[in-house]
C-alpha cells in the first residue's frame, strides 16, 4: 500500500520536516486557476510579482485563442469568437473533440484515440504557425504532450 503513495506523502507521514508552499510562483496568472479550483480548493495564492507581461508565449496564446471560435475551430464570424480571458490573466482552453473513437488495446486496458492525435497535431501546428508569424519565440523543446495512457503515447 505504501509503495503506491508519492514519496513526499510518505516522508510527511514519517514526520520529516516539511513546509507547504502557499503561493504559486511559476505560472502565468490564470494558468493555475483550474488546478487551484479543482484540486487545491482555492487555497494556493498567486505570487504578486507574476504578471502576464512577463510571459510572451502566454500573450501569444491569448491572441491565438481569439482566432478560434467557441468550438475551438478556426474562427469565421466574430459572433462565435471564444471569450477572452479576464484582464490580467490567461486561462487554459479546452478543445471539444466530440464523436471521436477511443479504442482499447487488445490484450490490456490501455487506450488510444487516433482522432485526438490528429486534433492535437492540428492545434499544435496552428499555434506554432501563429507564434512564427508573430515573431514569438516558441521552440519545440518548450512544448510537451501529456496523455493518460501509454497505448496512446506510443500510437502511430
Amino acid at each position, binding site marked *: 500500500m505504501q509503495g503506491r503513495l508519492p514519496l513526499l506523502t510518505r516522508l510527511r507521514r514519517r514526520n520529516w520536516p516539511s513546509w507547504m508552499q502557499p503561493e504559486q510562483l511559476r505560472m502565468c496568472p490564470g494558468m493555475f486557476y483550474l488546478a487551484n479550483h479543482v484540486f487545491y480548493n482555492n487555497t494556493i495564492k498567486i505570487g504578486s510579482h507574476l504578471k502576464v507581461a512577463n510571459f510572451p508565449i502566454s500573450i501569444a496564446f491569448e491572441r491565438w485563442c481569439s482566432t478560434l471560435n467557441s468550438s475551438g475551430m478556426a474562427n469565421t464570424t466574430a459572433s462565435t469568437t471564444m471569450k*477572452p480571458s479576464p484582464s490580467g490573466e*490567461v486561462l487554459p482552453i*479546452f478543445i471539444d473533440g*466530440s464523436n471521436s473513437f477511443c479504442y482499447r488495446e487488445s490484450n490490456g486496458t490501455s487506450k488510444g484515440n487516433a482522432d485526438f492525435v490528429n486534433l492535437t497535431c492540428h492545434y499544435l501546428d496552428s499555434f506554432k504557425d501563429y507564434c512564427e508569424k508573430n515573431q514569438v519565440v516558441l521552440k*519545440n523543446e518548450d512544448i510537451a*504532450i501529456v496523455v*493518460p495512457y501509454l497505448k496512446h503515447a506510443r500510437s502511430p
Partner: protein
Amino acid sequence: MSIFTQNDKYRGIEVHTTNTFQGFGRAVIFYDFVIAQGVANVDFVADDSRNVVATTRHTSALVMVGDFNCMESSDYSTETPSRGC
C-alpha cells in the same frame, strides 16, 4: 503519437504519460484526455493525482483536448470559468 518522434517538424516535442511527466515542466502543454463518449472505464482520466500532474506542468499555456460530453458527467465541469467552449 509516434508522429512526434518520427517527423522532423516535431523534433524536440516530447510525449509523456501523466506518470512519467511528474516533476517535469514545459512552457506549453497539450493534455490529451484520449477517452471518448461510450468508454465504460475512464479510470486514469478520472484520477485526481494524474490530472493534477497534467494541469500543473505548464508555465505559459495549457490546451486540453477531450470529449466535453465525457467531462460533463464529472465534477470538473462545475463552477469553472467559461470561455464559451
